[in-house]
């Protein structure tokens, strides 16, 4: 009975808190799945009294589709990747952050203050960044892994045991690096060669999985797989003997960004949310959880020691260049779509 009373009081307290939060309004966030620790969300609500309402998506394209299908005006902020910021901005889906509206804008590290996908950071702030490449199970293959041949022309040990991301952008960009051709090339011979190369490489792939890219490596369903750097670190932490590769041909860089959406119903709160994420302590808390990297200045001393020396964040000498995925124009994209359908038909 006493316990019942206690929980009753606790429930009452929760209700009061919730209504207090409601008094200060809310911010509606459209976010990737599992990409923000609950403690950080709670901290924001405790600091500002603003309630965070969150919907999640599992790919940039899925987010774009649902915003196009009527999501604009519902959400305040979203977290698109680099190339998607550019696509959304050119489609007029982003609001402009005027000078002085973000108190902590100065905290953005100089490297990321003026990126090609959002010059002058007019619509976005950095959320997290990292790389996409692939990880190899060292119990299965002990040779040199710092080459894109692992994915597209694999050694015998890895044939038929490779998972690739179920995402056209990443696979095409990686394939272009492997062949040494520009992304979104308009050269017909190069596009034909790209199509042929992918079709023959597929013979050695066991699956196309993005959501379970980490899980298939941990379980042993795949012996090598395309993966985001943080996922690879988590796979290692979960006991998989995997090593993340920085191929000499180059690898993919990505940056997710919090953008202010057009017609945001709670614009003021959205800006507070963005300011909150630019505070070094908060950015550090986020980064320690995601195990990616922050674009906020002054985070470094607050990071876990293990994160600073993380193999997935420290390319070896001789590693290739990290490149962002490019958004192709309509004509090339049509060819890319045909190639992707050929690959999966």
């Amino acid at each position: 009975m006493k316990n019942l009373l206690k929980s009753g009081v606790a429930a009452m307290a929760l209700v009061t808190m919730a209504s207090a939060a409601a008094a200060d309004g809310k911010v509606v966030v459209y976010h990737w799945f599992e990409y923000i620790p609950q403690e950080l969300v709670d901290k924001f609500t405790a600091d500002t009294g603003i309630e965070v309402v969150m919907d999640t998506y599992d790919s940039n394209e899925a987010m774009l589709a649902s915003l196009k299908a009527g999501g604009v005006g519902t959400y305040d902020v979203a977290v698109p990747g680099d190339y998607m910021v550019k696509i959304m901005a050119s489609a007029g889906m982003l609001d402009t952050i005027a000078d002085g509206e973000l108190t902590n804008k100065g905290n953005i590290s100089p490297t990321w203050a003026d990126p090609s996908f959002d010059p002058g950071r007019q619509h976005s702030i950095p959320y997290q960044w990292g790389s996409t490449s692939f990880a190899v199970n060292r119990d299965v293959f002990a040779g040199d892994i710092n080459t894109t041949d692992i994915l597209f022309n694999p050694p015998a040990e890895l044939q038929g045991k490779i998972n690739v991301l179920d995402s056209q952008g990443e696979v095409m960009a990686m394939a272009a690096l492997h062949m040494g051709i520009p992304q979104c090339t308009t050269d017909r011979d190069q596009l034909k060669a790209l199509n042929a190369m992918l079709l023959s490489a597929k013979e050695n792939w066991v699956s196309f999985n993005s959501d379970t890219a980490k899980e298939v490596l941990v379980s042993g369903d795949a012996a090598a797989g395309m993966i985001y750097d943080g996922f690879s670190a988590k796979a290692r932490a979960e006991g998989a003997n995997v090593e993340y590769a920085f191929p000499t041909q180059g690898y993919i860089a990505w940056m997710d960004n919090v953008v202010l959406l057009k017609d945001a119903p709670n614009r003021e709160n959205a800006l507070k949310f963005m300011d909150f994420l630019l505070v070094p302590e908060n950015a550090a808390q986020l980064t320690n959880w995601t195990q990616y990297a922050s674009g906020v200045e002054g985070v470094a001393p607050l990071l876990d020691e293990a994160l600073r020396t993380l193999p997935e964040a420290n390319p070896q000498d001789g590693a290739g260049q990290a490149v962002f995925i490019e958004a192709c124009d309509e004509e090339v994209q049509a060819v890319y779509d045909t190639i992707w359908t050929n690959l999966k038909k």
Partner: protein
Amino acid sequence: MAGGAASGGSAATDTYKEARNWLLLPSWVYLGAFVLVPVIMMLIYSFLTKEFRGGVVWEFSTAAYDQFFFDRGLFGDEPARIEWTYITIFWRSIWQAGAATLLALAIGFPTAYFIATRPEQARPMWVFLITIPYWVNLLIRTVSMKFMLRDSGPLNDFLIGTGLINDPISIINTNFAVQLGLFYSYLPFMVLPIYASVERYNFSLSEAAADLYASKWVTLRRVLLPAVKPGVIAGCILVFVPSMGSFLAPDLLGGAKNFMIGSLIEEQFKGNAGNWPFGAAASMVLLSMVLIVLMIFARQQAKAEKEAS
């Protein structure tokens, strides 16, 4: 089954003749709002011009159907040939869904028969047991299936443990895994309609057949099966149709290596392709195919009933 409903219906019609239209209103509203309007929207979208990266431009275009039926090469400027890509994808889906339906029938029919022949007070318990796993979300069940089937999973561990095999059988990421997944996802849809039919079956007919020297096999084929055919057909349709459009099992259990119709359509909305009219057109083709199959079934059933009466 249909006969009983018809005779009951005519009595009801007399009583409620006046109010009939009003009483039917909820179903008309439901059908209109959730079936007719979405299908018409889909039809309209399939004839619009695509907007780059998702969305539509309100201009008439047959480009989506053109893309579906004609192959114009990698760059879209070669003379049109018949496009086999999407036919292949549709054929694969039909094949996968068909195999899953046969599996479900092979397991579902004996199960339904078993339940229907239990003492009357025990039957609800058996039906209850059949439905319990389906209280769990489909995604969770499909993922569990993945755990079961994988090379290092319990199924292979068990088979190796018994000494039946030495090396794990690779089931995960194959077509068979997809069929198993679909079969498992929709099994109750097969069991329940067949159970409903068998329960109403008059077992003295089987005894009569036996008295007339029919073997058990002949009794099953010539007496029981024709009597419960509506239940079997309903079960097959209920398993086949959702299996055709499924994308969860192909993605999770089949490794998403090959498109099924469901994943092809999903790609048009959630993937890079962002081609809404084409997604709508592919859905329309799928819908038409399902409708044709249903109409063939319906006509055959009507014919069979006419012959019977």
